[in-house]
């Protein structure tokens, strides 16, 4: 309940923050909403020597449409995403994931960038960001680069970010006509984290078959992932119950599933299959042409 001591630095711009990161290197952690980092600091599991507070960096806190893309700043809170008409209209699964994170107090403080950079294996966002094929823009001393969602999540609490980089924003192509998406989750009853969370995106072709299928799964393995087996099994098929179920059966293929007192590995895998099916069905319901 009482964090260890640290030095506190307030950044007023991304440039500021990058300079501080450069100065303190591995000893520093970025603090945005603080809802991933502070809980660990209170338990003294994390004891960074320096905290760089980017909570007041306004340039990170925007949701905008730019060049046909929806661009969400790293500092945008979960609640802002859940409430945003733009996100709800064009990236429904992301809004649904945001709305199911923690509780309203957490959503009011926690940020998209903080959650993604933390890469908790049971976080909600990654599933949606994967299914919606978000692109993560990172800025470092060397300049900026863009990483595709499927390359961003590397392992447990590990992303493709370098220690001297800041997550600036995530951009998405808005879902097209004839496309539906959804995020469904089975929460762990105590923590509210996802035992399993599945985001699905389906586009129906003119012939009524599944033209494009994207499935992101969280909570199952040590990182969120795209369920490629599901995607390829359903792509090109008519969205009939049997085909969906057969495709969803691949949701946990090749995954070394997490196991804890709340759900063993094989139950998690089963939940992933069931929720994948249900998420696809929900996405299909929303495929208005």
């Amino acid at each position, binding site marked *: *309940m*009482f964090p*260890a*001591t640290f030095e506190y630095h307030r950044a007023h711009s991304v440039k500021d923050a990058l300079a501080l990161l450069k100065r303190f290197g591995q000893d520093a952690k970025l603090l945005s909403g603080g809802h991933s980092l502070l809980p660990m600091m209170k*338990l*003294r599991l994390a004891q960074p020597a320096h905290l760089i507070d980017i909570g007041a960096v306004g340039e990170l806190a925007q949701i905008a449409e730019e060049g046909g893309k929806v661009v969400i700043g790293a500092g945008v809170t979960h609640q802002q995403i859940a409430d945003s008409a733009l996100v709800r209209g064009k990236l429904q699964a992301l809004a649904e994931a945001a709305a199911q994170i923690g509780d309203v107090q957490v959503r009011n403080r926690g940020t998209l960038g903080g959650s993604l950079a933390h890469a908790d294996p049971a976080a909600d966002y990654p599933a949606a960001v994967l299914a919606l094929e978000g692109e993560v823009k990172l800025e470092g001393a060397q300049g900026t680069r863009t990483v595709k969602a499927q390359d961003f999540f590397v392992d447990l609490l590990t992303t493709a970010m370098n220690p001297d980089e800041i997550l600036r924003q995530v951009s998405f192509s808005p879902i097209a006509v004839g496309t539906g998406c959804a995020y469904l989750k*089975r929460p*762990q*009853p*105590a*923590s509210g984290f996802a035992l399993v969370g599945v985001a699905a995106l389906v586009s129906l072709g003119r012939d009524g078959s599944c033209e494009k299928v994207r499935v992101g799964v969280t909570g199952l393995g040590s990182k969120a992932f795209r369920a490629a087996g599901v995607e390829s099994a359903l792509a090109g098929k008519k969205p009939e119950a049997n085909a969906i179920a057969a495709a969803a059966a691949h949701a946990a293929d090749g995954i070394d599933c997490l196991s804890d*007192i*709340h*759900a*063993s590995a094989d*139950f998690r895998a*089963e*939940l992933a299959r*069931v929720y994948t099916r249900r998420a696809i069905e929900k996405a299909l319901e929303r495929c208005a042409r």
Partner: protein
Amino acid sequence: MAALPKFIGQPIRRREDPRLITGEGTYVDDVKLAGMLHAALMRSPYAHAKISSVDLSAARKHPGVICALSGEDLAGRLPSLPCVAPAQNVPEHPALARGKVRYVGDAVAIVVATDPYTARDAIDLITADFDPLPAVVDAEKALQPGAPLIHENFGTNLAAKAEMTPPGFDKAMSEADKTLKFRLVNQRLTPTMMEPRGVVAHWEHGYKQLTLWSSTQIPHLLRSQLADMLKLGENKIRVIAPEVGGGFGAKLNVYAEEALLGYLAMELDRPIKWIETRRENMAATTHGRGHVTYVEVGFKNDGAITAIKAKFFCDMGAYLQLLTPAIPSFTALMVPGCYRVGALAFEQNLIFTNKMATDAYRGAGRPEACYLIERTMDMVAAELGMDPVQVRRKNFIPKDAFPFTTAAGLQYDSGDYEGALNKALAMVGYDKLRTEQAAARQQGRYLGIGVSTYVEICGIGPSALLPPKLKGGGWESATVRVEPDSKVTVLTGVSPHGQGQETSFAQIAADALGIDIDDINVLHGDTAIVQYGIGTFGSRATALGGTALVMALGKVQEKMKTIASRLMEVPPQQLIFTNRTIALASDPSKSIPLQKVVEAAYGYKQPIPGVEPGLDASAFFEPSGCTFPFGTHIAVVEVDPQTGAVKFLRYVAVDDCGKIINPLLVDGQLQGGIAQGLGQALYEETVYDENGQLVTASLMDYAIPKAQMVPAIEMANTVTPTNLNPLGVKGVGEAGTIGSTPCVANAVMDALKPFGIRHIDMPLKPEKIWRAIQEAKQAKKG
């Protein structure tokens, strides 16, 4: 002035609330004293280990640290923590571990510093070396030969054993047409009151008096035990239970920190505060339940139970806290439930394990019994292909059989079990529901209807039933003081922490004295203000404390009538209290204002010669027996067979707690109790791994129900008064918890009936349900 209403029976909003809804209540952590220091404890990360060394030097050198002590430093200076309940093997229980640690969370060292951050920093500077020993986690395995011993001096992990096989038992069992044997697990639970424990200790050197604020349910009993431990007169310790943020039995105890802070405040001559963190609360505040029971039940083909045999393995944890070994005895006594069970035999093994001690937790032994008998009823029904409701009706103790002595030897005061059942069945529309259930099953939907008809024991007395070492019996106390301005102060020996006696007791006093509820102030929880009392636990406060209040009010009334009769020149027995007056019963217009009587009593106007001045009275109520509230709960659930998830469709509760002082408070107690009970059925379980590591060590992993996990409860009452107290009240604090757990478990099992599933142990987590369904499907195929 307008006529005053009667208050008893009315849903009066609570008089405690204005301070609590504005943030002005004072909990222990809100107590601030000049020069106050802060304590933190270093706790064992091992379940079982020898302590090789504890090096406090770095902690002591840390700026801001005032003192740091280990168990060895306290040897001979602070005696063992008390267990007042009898057991064959009561271990030494030092406030800080000496020689060995015996559970994860066992306190190893204490640090006192100028602020809590520094105290916490210093904990990280302590170097302790442990030599780990194999841990005993499973109570049944703890009795096997060769199991590691937790207290070597006993040569066994058995704390106590109790057996009872009455003559004629075997005959009763042999008369059964059928028998069933099964094993039930009543899992260990973490009470999880929202306010963790906390203590502030203040030694007033000049007065040689210790004041101790503690988040406790038993200020007086705590004072008595601390006086022993700290070698102070009971008149030199003042224990204050300020606002207490929930207890549920886990604050019915005497904890190491209370003794440690009292001791250190005296040693250091500085006030000290210690506030438990949530992780400490999960690890080092008593747990509840933790029984494994082997049940054998014999029954006739018509469902009549001829005999029940129950063999218990009760997990005590590593030490015996205040009442640890007493809790299972309530289970044994309540096994027959509301049924005419032909004969009952039991064996109880109370067993040490390398875990936190268990002790009272909402229901304290009775939920275990109720779960046992109510699951048994459903097992019998399933075996016979009968409706569970019919099996219950077959065995009920009939309404006209009270007082009734059960197979366990308890005398039940009153009851109408069929009445509550019928009301609940009508509310839920039972027959129609069964039809809907059958239709749903046709569509592959798994609806379950669960019934429990519970009875419990409250207001536990007479005093002979309680252990003498407790230094308090089964009675309760009250003082009524009519102040010179006619305002009334009530001092109660109970120690409410959410139950609302500041309101319900004011209702009782207002009606008795014919005054307004706002003219009454109910005080409690301060041993320097209130006469000795026992406290709030076991659903006893209103049945016992309320009765003591009625008695004290009676004494005050007598005196006031005496004075009034002299002033009015009428016989005292013709007088009544009404509308702030004392009036002639036959003609209330002939009256004297209460204030006139008070003035006379205090002698500042019209003193009455021969009447002792003053206007207060105390009373202690010793009950002649216990009360037995009861009811019927019905849950309707739907199980998702694909994921094992359980969804509530309905929850109906019909409860009978005797007469009701304040229906708002009764509903609140029941709703909260039901939520806790369904928490046990579906979500809660204290998990230690095979090495004795506490896995449910924070609210991240221990799931207490959240708002959306609890259904809206449809409530109703029946009223069957008790004649054991003048109020006719029975008690309601634990009823909801006791009734709801088996009700929900029975509902889930009923939903799973088409799969041929008879029983799954709690908590009924989705995975367990899903797995049972998979196994049942496999078995069918195989």
